[in-house]
């Protein structure tokens, strides 16, 4: 038996469910199409229309900001937590379960809860912040605060994923390396920079790449939390795409938006994809 039958299920699924429909989407992006209307060829005008729409450009900018900030912040926190867990803490098993818990919460429920917890007037967290004399997150009024809120929520929902990958990577590192480093007189910081980080590099890369991919298409967090508001100031590309396709039923511009979104996420993640490819090569 060759290798092809073993690869077939994965390749077949991707071909039928993702690749072929995507080709249709490319075709559709050059047409005007809506309900009760046959597609009509229009050349590049969908792309021009989307690219010249200030709402699209601001959505793209918002997405890039949120993705870059959220993913890297999440990575730092997850790394810190992984090292903390590894350094020996009491009740590690129970704590591990607690950290993983948000991962099991569905988006719909998570957003409903956060909206309430951070409600400007009665949210328990808001009230708590007020009693402690801390600044309140005015997420429904101030665009910057709204963005902060989205970043926090997105980190809450995805931190377990990143954490578990990094924690597992840290656990897998042989401890004799550290002993050797210590004997050579390396400080804590040197150990971190020279031993921990390089050895965890591959895991960090995998986690970053997947988080980039997922974060770039972030939808529910924004749609259910702020609806893109106040006054469309927190709209992200996926929300823009959803609006085009499902609110305005403009399938042509929606398709063009989708392809621009894929292109943009590729550009943003290209550095990490390149690193991963190099790694695959080096491993051989």
């Amino acid at each position, binding site marked *: 038996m060759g290798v092809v039958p073993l690869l077939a299920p994965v390749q077949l699924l991707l071909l039928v469910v993702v690749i072929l429909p995507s080709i249709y989407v490319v075709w559709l992006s050059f047409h005007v199409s809506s309900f009760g209307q046959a597609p009509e060829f229009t050349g590049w005008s969908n792309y021009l229309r989307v690219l010249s729409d200030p709402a699209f450009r601001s959505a793209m900018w918002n997405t890039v900001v949120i993705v870059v900030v959220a993913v890297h912040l999440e990575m730092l926190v997850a790394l810190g937590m992984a090292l903390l867990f590894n350094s020996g803490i009491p009740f590690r098993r129970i704590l591990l379960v607690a950290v993983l818990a948000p991962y099991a919460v569905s988006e719909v429920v998570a957003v409903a809860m956060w909206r309430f917890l951070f409600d400007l007037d009665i949210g328990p967290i808001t009230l708590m912040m007020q009693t402690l004399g801390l600044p309140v997150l005015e997420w429904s009024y101030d665009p910057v605060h709204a963005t902060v809120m989205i970043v926090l929520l997105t980190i809450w929902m995805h931190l377990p994923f990143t954490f578990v990958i990094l924690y597992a990577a840290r656990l897998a590192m042989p401890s004799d390396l550290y002993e050797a480093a210590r004997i050579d007189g390396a400080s804590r910081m040197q150990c971190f920079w020279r031993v921990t980080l390089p050895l965890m590099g591959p895991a960090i890369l995998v986690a970053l790449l997947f988080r980039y991919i997922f974060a770039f298409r972030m939808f529910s967090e924004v749609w259910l939390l702020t609806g893109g508001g106040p006054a469309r100031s927190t709209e992200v590309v996926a929300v823009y795409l959803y*609006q085009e396709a499902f609110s305005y039923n403009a399938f042509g511009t929606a398709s063009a938006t989708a392809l621009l979104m894929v292109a943009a996420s590729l550009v943003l993640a290209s550095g990490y994809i390149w690193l991963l490819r190099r790694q695959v090569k080096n491993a051989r």
Partner: protein
Amino acid sequence: MKTLQTNRRGFLAGATATLALIAAAPSLAAGKTLNILSHRVHQTSLGEGEADLMAAWKQANDADLAFTTFDSNPLMDRLFREASLPETEFGVGYLVDNRPTSEIAKLFEPLDYWMEKDAIADFDDIAPGLIKGMTIDGKLIGIPVRTATQALFCNLDLLEQAGFSAPPATLEELVAQAQKITDDKIATGMILASDLAVFPVMFARAFGGDFLTPDFKLLPDAAAMEQALTVLAGMFANGALPRSYATTKNDDQVTWMQQGRAAFTVLPFARAAQLNDPEQSKFSGRITAVGFPVAEALAGKTPMATVVEAWAMVIPTNAKDKELAWSYIKQVASPETTLGMALNGNGPARVSTFSDPKLVEKNPLAAIEAEALANGRGAFPPFPEAARAQALFLEEVQLAVLGRKSPAEAVEAIAARVAPLLP
């Protein structure tokens, strides 16, 4: 330990059996099934079990009803997608009146033929305005079944605490009362969702203006719209609208009113029951509804054209059993079923139902609702780019209310940005 295990197994067995029963339920009855695509509220207003308004129909037609329910916007999307297929399982769909454009109307069966063949009883009783809304390019495509007429809801307790004995009669009074309640720290004056065109449109109409008229005049009275936005912006700046205005949704309006966190809101009359539900509301029996007031300058001269949303039943052109679908529509639109649904809280589409003694007894607001409905119309007429136009309108309204733009600039921007989208 042993007993515990048996118990658990017993429970599991019981649960499994119940699940199996639930799963098997639809297959127990009937030779035919009519698949219906609707909002859950359309299903519940027909009653269930003992109170099933369709029980006789089901028996007579040896048919069962299978509802697939979604929330409003997703429902429209699904309905259009189903109707665009070569064939659909769904016989009947529920359509909102601000959606049928010429293109959309082509997806649905013209019903004039069916009316001639097998007419709905006392058809002329169904509000003519609603029938007109469902007549596209000269063809009737939907039978109106539900109206949602917007009302001004007031918490009488909070009004009394601020020294007001009656709900406001003019818009200026409304603003003043809301402000006093806010300033006296009794509650937030008013709560309005920011993601629906309904509310700014209502304020504009109270000043004699509008966003988009049925004959597609954009901002027929720009000064009125500017006044409306100025009032809303003023309320926001002075705290009579909450700081969370920009992320407030329809559901927030209900919870705020139930908790007494706001004294006024605008919601359909049918919400009165929920706002006064003793299980959920802290002010059960104290939240009442009146027609939305007009500005002082218009009081007594021009009646308020409140926003009315209507739903109609349609048959996709690609449906399989149109005979059965029409039979269902005919039954649901009949005077008896309309009354039955009205008693279950459905806003009727028939004029006579509002004055039915049974409804008047059950729902004291019926007369006020009928009056508001008589002068009401949709928030804006259907056209292909309506959803996009609404989004642009709301963006500018939010900018004005939050104080990021002056009302005049916002009105100017609405005119400039929406105009190219009109048909």
